């Protein structure tokens, strides 16, 4: 296979380095053609963004290398076409040479030459394929799980696990017929609440899967684009060379909010990374339910159970509100009125919500097969208790009762 030093090196062939010079020329050319030179502040990128890993650099170079070969062929072939178009016009008195319609020699030549060009293209491509596939000897392994619609990252060595979802407020997005109430920020649709954090210069292996439908973990500047397939784990890897923030999005259509599940990777120097791990342990440590209570103070967003704790309706409802906003409101809407276009039922006044607790809990845990309602068994007992209590006592719903973590625990069995 490929040696380790080879994998890390950015440019494996020299021609591509030269062709990089073409880049500014290309961009200027397109700007001039499009006539947008006056709008220099706007983004008229015409090429792959600057790569941040060795593999992404190889991809970048490969692309330019292939592109340049294609442009040369294009000029030659269409040079011949346009020459014919101008030279052999009937209106210029051109007479057809009807005997020129077969030539075995010419046909052999233009079969063999393209074949040779393809071999020249395939050699560097093969090297990169083998390098991309070599996920051996990682310094760090992160399991990535796709959800409708967000990501979960599990750092197996560091014992961390957290969800990462869109941080752009919906007020910047707007609705059909209702303009966005806030201006769009710089990182519109590319910002997340909890980014994946990785150390610079370390080989990070990703184990990618999905909880529901296909997703695609796609960060172009890292040279990674890998489907998450439910029931299967696939791997990929990257090694970031420079501290920074790298952005991507879900690449495989996964339903309603496919366009709203961005990816952010923050690469930190090893010391900063170690500091982040220490800090993250407080929030994101993987623990059993019992130990969580022992060393983590309850937070507004994260609600935890304590053995023997007497929950009040107000506590559960208050915690349920933010959980509802994060997990339910995208479909069922903040006002609980649902969204008929996607079969998201109204929770306000719903017989399931205000009826027997057991049927509400069953749907929360298992979802409704055949609809977009997924099961939320990934949430903890207390989180599910909070969100169902919230739904039972919000908007027009006034059951006055609450669902306790113990109810959820019993229903899970």
């Amino acid at each position, binding site marked *: 296979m490929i040696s380790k030093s080879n994998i890390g090196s950015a440019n494996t062939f020299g021609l591509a380095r030269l062709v990089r010079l073409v880049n500014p020329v290309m961009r200027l050319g397109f700007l001039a053609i499009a006539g947008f030179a006056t709008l220099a502040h706007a983004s008229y990128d015409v090429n792959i963004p600057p790569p941040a890993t060795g593999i992404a650099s190889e991809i970048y170079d490969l692309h330019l290398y292939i592109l340049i070969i294609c442009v040369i062929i294009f000029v030659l072939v269409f040079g011949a076409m346009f020459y014919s178009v101008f030279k052999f016009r*009937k209106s210029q008195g051109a007479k057809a040479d009807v005997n020129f319609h077969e030539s075995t020699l010419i046909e052999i030549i233009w079969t063999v030459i393209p074949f040779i060009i393809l071999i020249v293209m395939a050699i560097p491509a093969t090297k990169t394929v083998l390098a991309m596939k070599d996920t051996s000897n990682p310094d760090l392994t992160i399991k990535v799980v796709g959800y409708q619609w967000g990501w979960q990252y599990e750092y197996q060595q560091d014992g961390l696990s957290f969800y990462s979802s869109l941080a752009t407020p919906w007020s910047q997005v707007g609705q059909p017929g209702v303009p966005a109430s806030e201006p769009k920020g710089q990182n519109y649709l590319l910002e997340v609440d909890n980014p994946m954090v990785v150390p610079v210069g370390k080989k990070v292996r990703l184990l990618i899967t999905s909880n529901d439908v296909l997703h695609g973990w796609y960060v172009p500047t890292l040279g990674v684009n890998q489907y998450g397939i439910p029931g299967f784990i696939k791997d990929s890897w990257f090694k970031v060379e420079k501290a920074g923030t790298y952005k991507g999005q879900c690449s495989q259509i996964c339903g309603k909010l496919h366009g709203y599940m961005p990816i952010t990777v923050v690469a930190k120097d090893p010391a900063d990374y170690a500091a982040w791990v220490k800090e993250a342990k407080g929030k994101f440590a993987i623990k059993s339910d019992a130990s969580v209570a022992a060393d983590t103070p309850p937070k507004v967003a994260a609600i935890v159970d304590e053995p023997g704790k007497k929950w009040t309706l107000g506590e559960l409802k208050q915690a349920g509100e933010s959980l509802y906003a994060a997990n339910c409101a995208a479909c069922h809407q903040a006002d609980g009125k649902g969204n008929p276009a*996607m079969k998201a039922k109204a929770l306000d006044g719903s017989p399931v919500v205000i009826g027997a607790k057991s049927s509400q809990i069953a749907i929360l845990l298992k979802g409704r097969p055949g609809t977009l309602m997924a099961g939320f068994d990934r949430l903890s007992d207390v989180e599910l208790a909070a969100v169902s209590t919230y739904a039972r006592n919000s908007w027009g719903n006034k059951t006055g009762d609450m669902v306790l973590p113990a109810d959820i625990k019993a229903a899970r069995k």
Partner: protein
Amino acid sequence: MTATTHTADHADEHHDHKPYGLSRWLFTTNHKDIGTMYLLFGLLMAIVGGFLSLGIRAELFMPGLQILQPETFNSFMTLHGLIMVFGAVMPVFVGFANWLIPMQIGAADMAFPRMNNWSFWMLPPAAILLAASFFVEGGAIQSGWTLYPPLFTQSGIAGDMTILAVHILGASSIMGSINIVTTVLNLRAPGMTLMKMPLFVWTWLITAYLLIAVMPVLAGAVTMLLTDRHFGTSFFNAAGGGDPTMFMHIFWFFGHPEVYIIILPAFGIVSQIIPAFSRKPLFGYASMVYATASIAILSFIVWGHHMFTVGMPAAGQLFFMYATMLIAVPTGVKVFNWIATMWRGSLTFETPMLWALGFLFMFTMGGFTGLVLAITPVDITLHNSYYVVAHFHYTMVAGASFAIFGGVYYWWPKWTGKMYNESAGKLHFWWTTIGFNLTFFPQHFLGLAGMPRRIPDYALQFAEWNMISSIGAFFLAAGQIFFMITLYMSYKSGQPAKDKQWEGADSLEWTHLPSPAPYHTFEVQPVLK
């Protein structure tokens, strides 16, 4: 080609008995009537699919959600693909086949005229099922035209309507293909050997074999989706021991030959037009036939290039990369042959020739981006990005549709007996070419910059090119309204066309038949030397 001439004109006068009104079209077994219905059906579906694409481009005009809910956007995107592929492009090419194959091989009609009627009349119910799926609970499916589970499995009743529609369309295609194969192999005029057939007939013969080979595979795939949804099987459900990746393998085993099913008849049309306006025989006729067959055979071993991001082993990625790159060889041969046909010719540039040259130029650009995407590492960074959208629209629109437009202008005089307005045809060509490039060229840049496809809303750095693309799309669509007006005007009040409208045309429909071609042709077959 010389032949014992037969006065086909007389057939026009004495044998032109056909029912009038609706029953003519419902019960017709005439290949020309059926061809016309296929073409009009394809036009109608293209209008529906075009409307959906304008919805998509309108929503993408600027960031944020303005017009469509995300789920409606997904349905528009999905049905745009399904309708354009199965409802517009494929039926239009079958329409060409119906009209032209019997006339070009000197046959009186298709081999199975009643099956021909049936294969057309299966299409409207399928189209109605697809269109109606927008109005059922949950709306039309949102999984993209590839129908990938598990997302597809989450669909409401629209999922079942789509499965049924795909089954019907598949059965129609299989019947049409069997008809074409049988006609070409059995009903050729004496002396019309296989290697004398016009290239359009050759490309359709090969296409028909592709269809017969892969449509049952698609039918199997959607049947498995159906039983996964309703009968408790787990073909594609990992929880029950199945594998979503298996669907992708099966789908693309159908799907890649499918894209050649769409492009090979386009090659055939262009191979008729370029020699006609170069006044010179097609260069390398035999190698064109072999290249077409090679492309068809290779199409069965490249499906994995649609799946470079599922995580297949290195050996699989390398195999599919090499096999895919190999397709460039026969495709290159075709492009070189077309250019060599023009070389030392005597060229004129009537509307059909403009479309053929536009096809040649822009389809080749789609071929080059195809080569870029064949390179596995580059594909991985561009997979499911707008670069892919640009690539396949260069092959499907600038490829297949440009050939269709060229073919319509080329055979319009033979079909209707009327000439279209040459200036209007040329204007339509330039209008479409500019609109097309304005729409799709910027999408290469969006894909390179990392914009995923199938999203209703996007980050701010993608805004400028998206706006240009949307403006281009509306400009492009307006040009097609102009196209329909041009043809309507010609149909109503065009100048009468000559029997051999194009000086360089040499296939039987031009050399042996009047314009418009009479209802029944070649009741006595011509004998070719």
